[in-house]
Structure formats: structure tokens, C-alpha cells
């Protein structure tokens, strides 16, 4: 079966550095069944772009929701521990 079910997720961060941090955190996550599901991460300026390809909607749903959970954790961590917004504006 081909990986013809796809979803593209675009997430704008406050800065390109934050988008890049998110990409670097997500990249090491192994894909357990690459023959059934694949993910690629890229950044364009401050936007993290996540591309998913899957053999069907069920596998896509599990994979996409899992990656979004990870991204939410990354966003929360940056929000709690990263520079304040006003500091970012001066960078």
C-alpha cells in the first residue's frame, strides 16, 4: 500500500529560533513502522512545517495526534522556561 494519506501542519512560533528548537526536539523521535507512516519536519522562518504520510486514516490519526501532543509539550516548555516575550522582541 502506498503512503497516499497526507496531512500538512503549519505552526507559527514567535521566532525562527523557537521553530528550530521544536524541529530539533522532534527529529530524534523514531518512527516505529516507516513502511506505514512517515513524518518530515522543516522550518520556514518562524513556521514549523510538519508533513505526515500514511497508508490509511487510522494510522494517520494516531501519528498526527501523537506528534501534536509532543509539539504542545515543547510549546509549554518554551513558554515556561524560555525568554519572556518582551525579551524576544529585543533580540
Amino acid at each position, binding site marked *: 500500500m502506498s503512503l497516499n494519506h*497526507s496531512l500538512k*501542519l503549519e505552526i507559527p512560533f514567535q521566532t525562527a529560533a523557537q521553530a528550530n528548537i521544536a524541529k530539533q526536539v522532534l527529529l530524534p523521535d523514531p518512527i516505529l513502522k516507516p513502511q506505514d507512516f512517515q513524518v518530515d519536519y522543516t522550518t520556514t522562518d518562524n513556521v514549523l512545517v510538519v508533513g505526515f504520510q500514511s497508508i490509511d486514516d487510522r494510522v494517520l490519526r494516531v501519528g498526527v495526534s501523537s506528534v501534536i501532543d509532543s509539539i504542545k509539550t515543547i510549546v509549554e516548555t518554551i513558554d515556561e522556561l524560555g525568554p519572556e516575550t518582551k525579551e524576544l522582541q529585543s533580540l
Partner: protein
Amino acid sequence: MLHPTATYSLPDIEPTRFVVNPAEARFQTTDGKTTGASPHVLNAGQVDRDKPSEPRRTATGEMTPLGQLRANLTGLQDDINEFLTHRMELAKGKKD
């Protein structure tokens, strides 16, 4: 800050785009409908210890930009999960 978006596509069908509507309540919370413990488990008396924290807020009570992003992602995740679950049910109906 802009809002996250998603686009679902499959050969031979029109792509489906998911967008955030900040006025809707589901884009203002980190407690999603399709994530976390099921109502069945919660009604049985279990405590959801993994419940997500509230979005971070400024001293004036507004969500921080990243808190807003996390809430937006939660609503978008719900929309995508419901859409794909519906498609799975349709596919199952075709097989039965």
C-alpha cells in the same frame, strides 16, 4: 502571532483545510475533547493525573502568545481527530 493550520489531502479528493477560529471556546482551552482520559473512565471515579495544565497567562490575565498557540493546537487537534475518526467510520461501513 498567526494561528496554526493543517491541510489533509488524498489523491482524487478535494483537500480539507483546518483553521483556527479564536472566537470559539475549543481554541481557548488546553483541555481537548479527543485527548486525555475517556468520560467512561472519569465517570468510574478515576482522577486524570495527566490532565494538561492551563495555558500560561500574563499578569493581566491574558494568555501568553505561546499559551494561545497551545490552546489553538488543542482545538485543531480535536478537529483533525474528529475528521479522521469520521473517515475511519465511513471506511469501516464500506467494508461491513
